[in-house]
């Protein structure tokens, strides 16, 4: 089954096209979305199993020889990320049934979601730098639709800024690809990497690498380039926010990881120093934001920025512990952010506000929600049996191995800030005097709470089953650390 790695890209794409035909039939839309996503998750599981048993899967479309056609490559990292994004989208689609409202569902909400998933899976799987640009545009176009769908004043205002920032970063991406093409004469990432290690790394390649960090940093919200994220992400409704927070920035983080490890095998000195400093500043900026707000959405949004910093810090260590920790933490963070956003969606639905000062005492009325939130919060902070622990442990270990003592200490200190920021939500919303609540019917509450609680259970499983998942992460980190494995698999030398 040589085309297996295309299934997670093609199934959402075909589902989206089918959905375009009957936008007004809401029940049929929901059924088709769930069937399509279930098929896509099944294909992703199969793909991951194949990659683990048979090694890297690579197919060059149209049977052209490797550097001339567009290559799609699936290694353990991209297969794991594809599986995670499909799983998260499945839960969020389920969660959307009750929370997004029929008006949006009638106006191409699900097709936009599926097109975005197509772009995300494609960006994770592609082995061609220009094709990656195209898949980025696919996911960005769908995200423009999702962010403005509904047309409230606030959404219109914020999506103008969101589109403008992304148009600029896309033009910058094209510029970078043009320069890379003039230096190497090829667009296939494995071929670029092979050529770079042949001719040695010149100064212009360092410049191009810094430009790539800027491009993907703008998409993935690293320190000086995260300014657009808090405003834009707070505008759309909660399911869209959960999709964005869990998936979009992580595509930028993945692209930085992939390009930096592939393009700079020889002289990582300057760029990795830069990446590390930016990552630490990202963590600090995120920590300040996470403590500054009394708004549920903003607190978790700034936690996205902190996590981006932690992952990139792991990547910047360039030793196997740091890289493995970064891979572990990346997938953990996608799952836990989706779970947290879905849970704050439930809290907002129950209380009718996202201001922490106006809520309290939910422990008495909604104990299940309270304990699920506490588990998710501990998972985010990295309390040992839960999902965030092992990734961060490895990242800190990598930092100490690479003699970046201060960076490791900042990572550990940031965990305390993260824990404080989410426990503050717990204290304000669940303890204290009960406040008058808007309330939702038990049926609506159940259908919002069950997908959120199940996704939290998945994160708990991810933490408890570390030993079982570790071979995937070790293989992924080994390929990042040793680009020649990737090059050989693609160019079949």
């Amino acid at each position, binding site marked *: 089954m040589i085309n297996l790695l295309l299934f997670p890209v093609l199934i959402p794409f075909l589902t989206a096209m089918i959905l375009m035909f009957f936008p007004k039939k809401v029940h049929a839309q929901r059924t088709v979305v769930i069937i399509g996503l279930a098929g896509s998750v099944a294909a992703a599981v199969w793909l991951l199993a194949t990659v683990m048993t048979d090694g890297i899967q690579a197919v060059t479309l149209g049977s052209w020889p490797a550097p001339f056609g567009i290559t799609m490559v699936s290694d353990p990292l991209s297969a794991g990320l594809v599986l995670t994004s499909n799983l998260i989208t499945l839960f969020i689609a389920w969660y959307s049934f009750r929370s997004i409202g029929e008006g949006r569902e009638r106006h191409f909400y699900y097709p936009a979601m599926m097109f975005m998933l197509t772009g995300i899976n494609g960006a994770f799987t592609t082995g061609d730098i220009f094709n990656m640009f195209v898949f980025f545009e696919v996911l960005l176009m769908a995200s*423009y639709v999702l962010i403005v769908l509904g047309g409230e004043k606030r959404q219109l*205002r914020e999506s*103008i800024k969101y589109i403008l920032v992304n*148009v600029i970063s896309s033009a910058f991406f094209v510029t970078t690809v043009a320069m890379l*093409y003039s230096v190497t004469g090829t667009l296939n990432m494995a071929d670029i990497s092979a050529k770079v290690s042949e001719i040695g790394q010149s100064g212009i390649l360092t410049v191009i690498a810094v430009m790539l960090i800027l491009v993907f940093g703008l998409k993935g919200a690293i320190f000086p380039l995260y300014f657009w994220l808090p405003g834009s992400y707070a505008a759309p409704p909660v399911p869209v926010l959960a999709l964005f927070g869990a998936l979009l920035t992580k595509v930028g983080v993945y692209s930085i990881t992939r390009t930096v490890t592939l393009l700079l095998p020889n002289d990582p000195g300057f760029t990795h120093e830069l990446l590390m400093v930016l990552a630490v500043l990202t963590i600090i900026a995120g920590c300040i934001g996470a403590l500054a707000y009394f708004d549920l959405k903003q607190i978790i949004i700034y936690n996205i920025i902190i996590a981006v910093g932690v992952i990139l810090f792991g990547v910047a260590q360039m030793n196997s512990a740091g890289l493995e920790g970064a891979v572990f933490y990346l997938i953990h963070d996608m799952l836990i952010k989706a779970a947290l956003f879905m849970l704050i969606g439930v809290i907002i639905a129950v209380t009718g506000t996202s*201001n922490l000062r106006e809520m309290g005492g939910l422990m008495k009325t909604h104990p299940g929600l309270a304990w699920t939130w506490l588990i998710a919060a501990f998972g985010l902070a990295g309390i040992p049996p839960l999902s965030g622990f092992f990734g961060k442990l490895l990242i800190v270990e990598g930092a100490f191995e690479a003699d970046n003592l201060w960076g490791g200490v900042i990572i550990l200190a940031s965990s305390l800030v993260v824990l404080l920021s989410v426990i503050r939500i717990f204290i304000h919303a669940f303890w204290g005097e009960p406040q008058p609540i808007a309330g939702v019917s038990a049926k609506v509450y159940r259908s919002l709470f069950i997908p959120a609680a199940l996704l939290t259970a998945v994160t708990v499983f991810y933490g408890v089953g570390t030993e079982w998942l570790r071979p995937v992460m070790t293989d992924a980190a080994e390929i990042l650390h040793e680009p020649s494995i990737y090059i050989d698999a693609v160019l079949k030398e």
Partner: protein
Amino acid sequence: MEIIMSVIIGFLFAGAVYLMLSRSLLRVIIGTGLLSHGAHLLILTMGGFGGDAPPVLTDGVTDFVDPLPQALILTAIVISFGVTAFFLVMAYRAYQELETDNMKLLKGNDEYD
């Protein structure tokens, strides 16, 4: 030739940055148009201006222009066309709803919506 093109592209980028930093939303969109022109011309320039014949197979011609950058530009043009169309419609909707095209007035947060 590449030098001249690089200078022109530099001017396009400078004009785009200047326009995108202005207050009126329409000027910002014109700036994004200039920016994508600059990026497309840059791909063409970076591919090199070697070769005489257009990249169409003809008998007796051996020296073709590099076809790859042209394909990349064609892709990038339709993408930026789609995004610009969406952006213009959104600017129109925002003008109807928010009744301003001044970027300075498009502020606000939860407390001051």
